[in-house]
């Protein structure tokens, strides 16, 4: 683990293909919306126009450029997934390490709380909050993180307990290092690979969730998203325009989830201590 932990990953085809896919989609989400000359909210084009040199993917029923919508929707999905995944990871690290380090009743209490949260279906809580309070996407991402940190925190806590009893930690305690110093200098950095596993899994779940909530129509209708595009395009499935309107968001969403899945699976295989033998 003190060697470069990513060395072996570089020869994993799943990791590499996931990385390539994720970079392409990430780049498209980052600079794509600026590359298209149209505002995705501009409704001044001929509704349902087929693809042309001016509108590569045609125009939707509301007279908006589909390519511009697609790229902005992709950006929104990626942003939601990254923020929810990042927030959940931060919570999981703080709580998991704190529980492992303090031990005793605080640890027991935190783990019981985690059990209760694991029993509550996050989807349902999100649906109700989105339908009743119409929060900003970022607030929803925070809510999702607050509900889903336990599974990652459990893994981090288990590994932190293992590291806590290793000799170098005992030695630095013996030499009078403070708890804070040991946590910051030893515990948190040595758990580093687990963070990638946790982040990839949580980001995947959050992107999935964003697509579902958007598809169900739970975000602000003017917020562009892949799920909402699919939901609108599906209403016109009987027309011959599904291949330029319905297919692009479906493909983009599939490729995005697939990229994150490949990364999550290969990271988990590499870094999850329980899976070491099954490689």
């Amino acid at each position, binding site marked *: 683990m003190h060697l470069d932990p990513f060395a072996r990953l570089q020869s994993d085809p*799943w990791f590499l293909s996931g990385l390539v896919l994720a970079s392409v989609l990430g780049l498209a989400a980052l600079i794509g919306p600026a590359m298209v000359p149209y505002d995705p909210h501009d409704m001044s084009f001929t509704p349902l126009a087929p693809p042309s040199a001016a509108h590569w993917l045609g125009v939707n029923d509301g007279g908006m450029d589909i390519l511009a919508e697609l790229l902005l929707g992709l950006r929104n999905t990626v942003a939601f997934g990254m923020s929810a995944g990042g927030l959940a990871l931060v919570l999981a690290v703080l709580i998991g390490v704190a529980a492992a380090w303090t031990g005793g009743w605080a640890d027991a209490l935190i783990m*019981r709380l985690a*059990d*209760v949260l*694991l*029993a*509550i*279906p*996050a*989807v*349902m*809580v999100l*649906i*109700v909050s989105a*339908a*009743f*309070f119409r929060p900003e996407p970022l607030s929803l991402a925070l809510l999702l993180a607050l509900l889903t940190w336990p*599974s990652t925190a459990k893994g981090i806590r288990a590994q932190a307990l293992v590291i806590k009893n290793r000799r170098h930690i005992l030695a630095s305690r013996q030499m009078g290092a403070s708890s804070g110093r040991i946590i910051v200098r030893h515990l948190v950095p040595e758990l580093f690979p687990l963070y990638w596993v946790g982040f990839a899994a949580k980001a995947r*779940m959050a992107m*999935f*969730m964003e*697509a*579902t909530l958007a*598809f*169900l*129509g*739970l975000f602000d209708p003017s917020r562009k998203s892949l*799920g909402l595009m*699919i939901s609108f395009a*599906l209403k016109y*499935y*009987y027309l011959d325009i*599904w291949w330029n309107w*319905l297919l692009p968001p*479906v*493909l983009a*969403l*599939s490729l995005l*989830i*697939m*990229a*994150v*899945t*490949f990364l999550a*699976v290969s990271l988990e295989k590499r870094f999850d201590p329980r*899976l070491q*033998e*099954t490689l």
Partner: protein
Amino acid sequence: MYSRRWSKRWSGIAGYLIGAMVLVYSSHRLPALLPGDFVTAMFASSHVTLTAEQDAQLRAWYIHRPDFGEYLLGLLRLDWGYSFAFLTPVSRLILEALPWTLLLAGSAHVLSMVLGFWAGVEAAWRRGGRVEKAAVGLMTVLEGLPEIATGVALLLLFALHAGWFPAAGAQTVYARLSLWAWLLDVLHHLALPLATLVLAYLPGNFLLTRASMVMVLGEPFVQTARAKGLPPLRVRYRHAARNALLPMVTRLGLRIAFMVTGVLVVETIHSYPGLGTLLFNAIAKRDLPLIQGIVLFSSLIVLAVNLALDWVYGRIDPRAAHAP
């Protein structure tokens, strides 16, 4: 030994009970947290127009705050409120949609578990072979496909393009069929949404079974069974696979909560008249009592299923019942 076993069982049940109470209590407090004049705000942006009387009723339902015990009793008495978009009691709408969701989700879970388990065991047995590598690759790709995508693809291909399966509904309405013809009709309507869900659940089950089976096959007791000269089929299933089943049951419990999303989306895409479609319509019409009812009801079902799985887990793994 006995007291420990029971205390473990009860602390598990207590976790779920606390979870259920948290949900019911939040549902009970929800109206009080709503901002200002939400009735006007909600219905102004929807297609539903309320008469003055209905408007007053809805306001009264949300302004009248029963205490928690009264609310709980009301839930037990199936008094879940009144849907203003469908002009029907919420509990009746839910009970009408429930059988279809149970049929769809239940058959999808059973099918994907049996298939995934069998394929996972066989794959681990043939570890390193070409077939096994191809299967793992295919399943990893499938794992990356969201239900929205597979559902739309199957709908376009088999319902609209080929026309082999109906594109919507759970049965042919107004067709007076004999029992067998009706069953066939129901299966015909079930095929596409079921296929979508099985494609979504199968890869996870396969990959997990394979991983745990690979670990079990390395254990000494499997070697013993082989050395005794037992037939391979018996070693594989009676000795090894039984132990590989356990992680799958645990994981199923953890994942069921997230699978609810899958059913929601798939039912909506295929217009299957279950709870998911009902919720979709309720959201589209901003029907607050109905949304609240469906969400609370399905959350409680998720909890109940998880509790049942805990019990099953204790049954199939004697160690879990005796574990400290």
